[in-house]
């Protein structure tokens, strides 16, 4: 039974309505992109959840390694000068 035909895995991204970005909602198995799109429509938009669908082969997505999380993301944590709250504006000037 281990020789059974395996349909590739696709990641599904749906735009809930225009104006919003596509968001990862889950995955489907399908033989090709057209079938993956149809499967995503039938599986993930049954309750009117979508206005646009992207599918991508799971194998085509490159992901960052969690073991490199510290070097990847920690350096951004203390750059407070990128935040508006880091700067003082005299009260008399009002909102800025």
């Amino acid at each position, binding site marked *: 039974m281990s020789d059974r035909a395996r349909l590739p895995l696709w990641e599904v991204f749906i735009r809930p309505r225009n104006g919003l970005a596509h968001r990862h909602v889950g995955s489907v*198995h399908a*033989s090709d992109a057209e*079938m993956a799109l149809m499967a995503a*429509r*039938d599986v993930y938009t*049954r309750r009117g959840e979508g206005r646009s669908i992207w599918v991508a082969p799971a194998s085509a997505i490159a992901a960052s390694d969690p073991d490199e999380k510290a070097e990847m993301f920690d350096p951004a944590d203390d750059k407070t000068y990128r935040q508006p709250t880091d700067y003082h504006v005299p009260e008399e000037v009002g909102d800025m």
Partner: protein
Amino acid sequence: MSDPTLFQYVLGLADDQLVLGHRLSQWTGRAPILEEELALGNIALDLIGQARGLYQYAGALEGAGRDEDALAYHRDARGYLNLTLVEQPNGDFAQTIARQLFYTAMALPFWQAMTASTDQRLAAVAAKAEKETAYHLRHATEWTARLGDGTDESHRRMQAAINQLWAFTGELFEMIAAEAGLAAAGIAPDRKTLRAAWDRTIDATLSDASLTRPDDSWMAEGGRDGLHGEDLGHMLAEMQSLQRMHPGLQW
């Protein structure tokens, strides 16, 4: 309101959708891929929804107090007016896809034409059905291509299904006497005019799938007069069993 001609016509349309929807619902738990369980369920639900709208209208046209369930559950096979194509058993997945292809290739131009009906209720049903059917046709053509041009086995099965169901396609374009009158009045599409669009869809789909269009020979007829094959009676006996065992109850 009582209009026997239009009533019969709408009832036949309702029966088409219900019988096909019921057939597809028989795939529940049996689909070849989990994703396809959901696809077939969606199509079945669209068709059952179309049937309900049409039965409700038919009941109003008849004016005898019969609701959607009285019409669906209390007529036997002789009273059912559906096309014989839609009652054909599911068979293997190829036969189900061939049935879907033949029916929806007609149904899409049919509903498109019906959106221009002078009958407001039918035009409203058509506006919804048109979109649903466009997707059903996409589903059927995509699968026809994959089965026709997949493996040797799938090609053989798909061609066999096309050949076997071909005899039920002539009826898609038959006009019963009453229907011709409704077409003349701008209420119903003229089925003869749907033929060209159907031929185009079928020829393109079969050719893309490396499948051969069968020659026309004997064609089934009689569905609109309640003359069916033997399978429909069994399907209805199962579908109607509770209503028939306990008549007059609410469920």
